[in-house]
């Protein structure tokens, strides 16, 4: 079994791993070694989420997820896949957090509802009282070494935080302030992004991150720059309907503004990704997701209550007004003799 993998090699592996190599499979031995040597445990909690991120994690195919969960990561609490339930599980979570204070990693899936004192999302009981997710994230989060926000909801607010946001959902780093937070967005994130980030924090500590707290090893490229339909874009061939060959830009592809490596990593064990499957990139890793129309090129502008218009409509109306104004002024100019033959007559008279 290999014993040393330098951080540089690790990052290169994460960033460059093509679909053909299973990143998780390659990392597994190193991680299990670290875990065997007493690497920090991981607690996984869920708030305002759809569990999609966990499902995506379960898609880790090689080695199979069972091995990952039992040998590769020392996962001590996960609402969906742990065998324990109820008070037993809650007590265990609190115990792990207390015993490993400052030395465990907290994975948060889902946004944090803060409306009504967080009552929109309760996740268990402590001494017979509801614990809101907000309270759980703050109390446990403060004890952790770092928080890993998995999925756009916990990283940036995502779908639950989209206006009008009645439950006042927030991103984790807006709720817990004094602990390092690593954002691994995606709706859902690729399993490699999650396992890779966990591996990095276990083996080397906090990874290098961009402005929005995303690990650079996965999120430093724009999808549009590595898209297999890019040649269509460059040649000006654009699909008008789904199923046509061509770049998906006109159908609303957000590739030019989305940071992610799905086009080289491929989802579902290296089978497919968003654009290859004939869809568009919806920009699911960006902080503003999903505040834009997924199948339109550009968002419309709000102009009044429940009324929006496209910029082109505004432009055309203003353009029409401008042309009308110019036309009117031109007519006026000619009628009053400011331009045309009359002006010269007047000037000549004046001169003489």
């Amino acid at each position, binding site marked *: 079994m290999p014993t040393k993998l330098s951080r540089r090699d690790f990052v290169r592996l994460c960033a460059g791993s093509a679909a053909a190599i299973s990143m998780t499979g390659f990392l597994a031995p190193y991680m299990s070694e670290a875990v065997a040597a007493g690497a920090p445990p991981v607690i996984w909690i869920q708030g305002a989420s759809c569990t999609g991120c966990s499902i995506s994690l379960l898609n880790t195919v090689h080695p199979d997820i069972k091995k990952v969960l039992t040998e590769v990561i020392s996962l001590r609490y996960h609402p969906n896949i742990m065998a324990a339930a109820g008070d037993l599980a809650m007590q265990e979570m609190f115990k792990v957090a207390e015993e490993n204070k400052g030395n465990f990693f907290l994975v948060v899936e889902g946004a944090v509802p803060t409306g009504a004192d967080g009552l929109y999302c309760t996740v268990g009981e402590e001494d017979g009282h509801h614990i809101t997710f907000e309270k759980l994230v703050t109390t446990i989060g403060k004890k952790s070494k770092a928080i890993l926000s998995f999925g756009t909801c916990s990283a940036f607010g995502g779908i639950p935080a989209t206006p009008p946001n009645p439950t006042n959902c927030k991103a984790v780093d807006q709720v817990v302030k004094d602990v390092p937070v690593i954002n691994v967005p995606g709706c859902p994130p690729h399993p490699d992004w999650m396992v890779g980030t966990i591996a990095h924090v276990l083996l080397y500590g906090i990874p290098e991150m961009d*402005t929005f707290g995303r690990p650079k090893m996965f999120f430093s490229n724009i999808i549009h720059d590595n898209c297999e339909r890019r040649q269509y*874009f460059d*040649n000006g061939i654009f699909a008008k309907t789904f199923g046509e060959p061509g770049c998906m830009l006109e159908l609303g592809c957000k590739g030019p503004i989305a*940071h992610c490596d799905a086009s080289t990593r491929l989802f579902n064990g290296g089978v497919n990704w968003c654009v290859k499957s004939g869809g568009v990139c919806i920009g699911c890793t960006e902080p503003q997701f999903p505040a834009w129309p997924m199948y339109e090129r550009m968002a419309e*502008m709000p102009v009044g209550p429940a009324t929006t218009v496209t910029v082109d409509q505004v432009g055309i109306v*203003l*353009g029409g007004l*401008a042309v009308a104004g110019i036309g009117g002024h031109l007519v006026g100019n000619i009628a*009053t003799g400011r331009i045309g033959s009359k002006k010269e007559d007047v000037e000549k008279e004046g001169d003489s």
Partner: protein
Amino acid sequence: MVKQMEERHSVWIRFCHWVNMISITLLILTGYYIHAPHTFRLFSNMDTPRTLHFAMAYLLCFGVLIRVYYAIVAKDTKNIVFSVKEDTPKFPSMIKYYLFMADSHPYYGKYNPGQKMMYTGWLVMVLIQIITGFILYKPNMFMALGGFLGGYMAVRLIHYIVTWLFVLSVLAHVYLDISEGVPVLKSMFTGKIPADFDHGTHEEEIETDTGVGA
């Protein structure tokens, strides 16, 4: 008879004017293709307009830089920068003139307050376009700025709206300057304008004028 001419635009002003005119026109045309390649079929591929768009973006930066530097060094700022305190009171007479409610307008200086407002506005708009443009061009380099402005989608929208403002204001600019008289248009090429060109009536003249008219 040779008309007596006086200097109106220095060679630097003319140079910047036409450089910026070329870059802005090409930026608008290529930009619109990049925005709507299906509806606006001016190019046959994406490569040419994008290369042109980025090249012209640099040219515009350069043209604007020279123009701003010139304006400061040659004290041209007083001609083109709109001053709220001094220029706002001049608006009523200008609007009256444009709406044909008055036959002449007072002498405003090189440009009337409307023109000054437009030119100052262009500087602001150009800066907005340069900033939003670079955010979209180099999304990794200016990630924080893009996030501050509300994300790339908002930046796209701003870039696009300001483009429309450019289209409309350039339309108005071209019309108003041509309608002021061909000599004004010519002066942007030659730099000179006939000495007797009507730039507006000086204060004293207005009084006598109205006296005669009434």
